[in-house]
Structures are given as C-alpha cells and as structure tokens.
C-alpha cells in the first residue's frame, strides 16, 4: 500500500445503482468512451441501499477512494431511495471530513442511464482527485 513506486494507481470502489448509474457505465462502455480503469464497480439495487458501513468498510479494507452514484433526484426506480440516501450521505461525508479523512476520498454523484459521457467525466475527476491525495492511510486496517 505504501507509495514507493511512482506508478501507483489508486483503487476506487464505485457503488452504482442498478437502474441509472450502472446503465450509465454500460453506455459509456458501449459508446467506447475512455475513462481511467481505477474503479471497481459494485452494483447495488438503489443508492438508498448503501449503508455507511459499505463505504467505511471499503476504506478500511484498502480502497483509496469510494464513489457512490445513483439516479438523479426524482428519477429513482423506487421513487424516494435517492432522496433518503442524499440526507444520509451529506451527514456521512461531513462526519468523515470532521474526523480528518481527506476531502475527496468519498464522493457522491448522480448519473442517469443516458449519461455515458457524464459517467466517464465523473470517473476521470474522481480518479484525479484521489490520485492527488495519494494512497489512503488513515482508515486502513493493518496488521500490527
């Protein structure tokens, strides 16, 4: 995990909602859009499904960054899942920054099924930010 080699590439976990962002990622793929290969996608039924535990466990187990993406407000397949998620994420992000996790490690966005281009942009931006921050050290669980 140490940043010894100069070719270090961040590992980013992306939680994508099944109905919008995952389809958006698919569209980016079939449209042959280029974006960094640093993300590991985990498909979830809805952004409201994501427990803060998922995000914290990712960081604890060696992810350098976490991205959560769901349907735009109003477009949720389950009508209100992303609205509830938005309140939850606002608090989680603020708490993580409060305790001293670098701003930008955990990010949230809305990507619809038709926004393949936006998906590629989001991944580029997140990868850039996490790369600039360097390897995650603060919440990682290590053997003593």
């Amino acid at each position: 995990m140490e940043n010894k080699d100069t070719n270090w590439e961040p590992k980013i976990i992306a939680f994508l909602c099944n109905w919008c962002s995952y389809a958006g990622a698919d569209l980016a793929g079939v449209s042959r859009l280029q974006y960094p290969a640093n993300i590991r996608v985990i498909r979830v039924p809805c952004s409201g499904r994501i427990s803060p535990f998922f995000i914290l466990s990712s960081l604890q187990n060696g992810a350098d960054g976490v991205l959560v993406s769901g349907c735009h407000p109003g477009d949720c397949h389950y009508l209100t899942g992303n609205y509830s998620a938005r309140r939850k994420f606002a608090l989680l992000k603020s708490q993580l920054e409060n305790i001293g996790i670098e701003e930008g490690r955990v990010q949230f966005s809305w990507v619809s099924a038709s926004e393949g281009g936006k998906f590629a942009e989001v991944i580029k931006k997140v990868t850039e930010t996490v790369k600039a921050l360097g390897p995650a050290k603060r919440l990682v669980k290590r053997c003593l």
Partner: protein
Amino acid sequence: MADLSSSIREEAKKLLKKGEADVIIGFEKGSLPLCATPCFIRNEADVEKLIWNEFCGNNLSRYLIKAKGKVGIIAKGCDTRAIVELIKEKQVQREQIVIIGVPCEGMVDRKQIMMRCQGNKITNVEDRDERLLITGDLLNVAVKKDECLYPGCQVCTNRNPVMYDVLIGSTSEEQQTDEFTDVTNFDGKSSEERWEYITHEISKCIRCYACRNACPLCYCKECFVDTTQPQWVGKTTGQTDTLLFHIMRSIHLAGRCVECGACERACPVTVDIRKLNRKMSADVKKLFDYKTGLDIDQPAPLSTFKPDDSEEFMLDI
C-alpha cells in the same frame, strides 16, 4: 435545591397515592460525595429517599424503555428531550408516563471538581447557593457551580423541560449562547490536526460500550457492534475498528442525539465522544433545520426528505 427536593417528594407521594404511577424514577443520595444515584420508588414510605441537587446528571429516560406499568419520572430539560424522541420512535407511550419536570441550571461535573481538588479525598459537599463548599481531610474550598458544569450543560439552550405533566419550581433562564461555536472552532483546524485529535481520543477507548449503554436513544435490542452475522465492525481495540464504531454510532444518532452528555459521563476513560455527535447535531441544524427533542410532531430528519435538500456536498459535474 432543598425546596425542589421536598416538592418532588410531595409530588411523587401524590402520584403513588392516587395510583397514577406504579413506580417513580428519581435520584437518591449517592454512596459517595458528589454523587446522586438513580432510584426506583414503589411505595410511599420510600419517597423520602428522593433528592434533587446539582449532581443529578444521569439521563433517567434511559430506564423508561424497559419499565413496565405506569411510570413517573423526574426529568430535567435533556431528559424530556430524550422522552420526546422516544415517544416519536414509539419506544415509550405518552399515556404510560407521568413526567415531573424540573428546570435545570446545569449539572456539576464531578470529575472537574476532583481535578480541582488535586486528588485529595473529598468527604463532604455543602450547597451554598452559587457555590459548593467542598471539605475533606486536607481540603476546604469553595467552588463556583457555573465553572464546573458538564461541557454539554455549558452550551445547553433548553434547560427547561419541553414536555411535562407537573412542573416543579420556576423555569430557569435559558442561556443565549451560540450553541455550535465548538463545532465551528474544530472545523477551522486543518485535516491533519483534526485527525490527530480524534485518533488521540480514540486511542483511549477500551470499547466497553458504556457510552452506548448509557445513551437513552441507543435502545436497539441488538447493536451493530454485537452482531456477528454479518460482522459490521471488527472486534479489536485497534484504531480503525474503534473509530468505525464511533463514526457509526454518531451516524445512527444523527438527528436523534439530544446532547444530554450521558455518553461522556459514562465514559471511564474520558473520550471526547461529543466531538462526533456535536458535528452531526450542527449539520442536522444547518442542512435540515432540525433540532432534536423539541417538537413531537416533527419527523426525524433521516426518516424524511425534501426534494430540494442541499446537494453542496456532491460532485459538481
């Protein structure tokens, strides 16, 4: 304080006599100076045990969840705020409880007094209005109560009970403080400084879960730290596992924490748990314009939403 005690006794006696309550939850004299112990009074003869002083810090609403029958409870501002939340979350029925509200003037932090006495043994404490006269073998000091309040009491803006059936004494004057200065100050520090502070605090934690057990709103029958299938949080007292426990507890209490300070009082190793909970309270106020425990009809912030909630925290693309 003495007259408050006697009015509380009278009221408790009345309730037990009329059968309006089967048990009264209040405070009795502790076995050590600077202490008051929660007690359960079931018959009129025991009513004389009840006391009220500046050491009645514990949040008695914690006992309501498991109480059976009709319960009378002596409650100060923070206790009633917790009761409001418990009723809202359907853990307690309003009809089941009789609230004897007592306006509070801030509770005195035993640990701060002991620090001032530099470890000398304290044998007696006398109440002299604004001061406490503390005596011991090598000790004879007067301490101003205001200077030794719990950190939570210092910034409390709801000292009077928000909901009660009977009010004892007259309402206290509410403090007009900017309640979140501590949060703003901490926010002003750099990420490194904050991390250093938090990890230092967390390193003290022995994961006894006293904070959780004392918290009136931590009533889950099975807490996330106790489950093994799935195991949400590692069981070690290592930095990240402990920190995860505290982060998740603060998230679970976001919009529910009434800032009674029970967690901090219960902590045997003085971890600054409020740093996390206060941040959540400040955010809930700022983002969702919600203050916990004041309005029984207002839904909890994380159980509801508005279509136009703030999206400032999201990626701007």
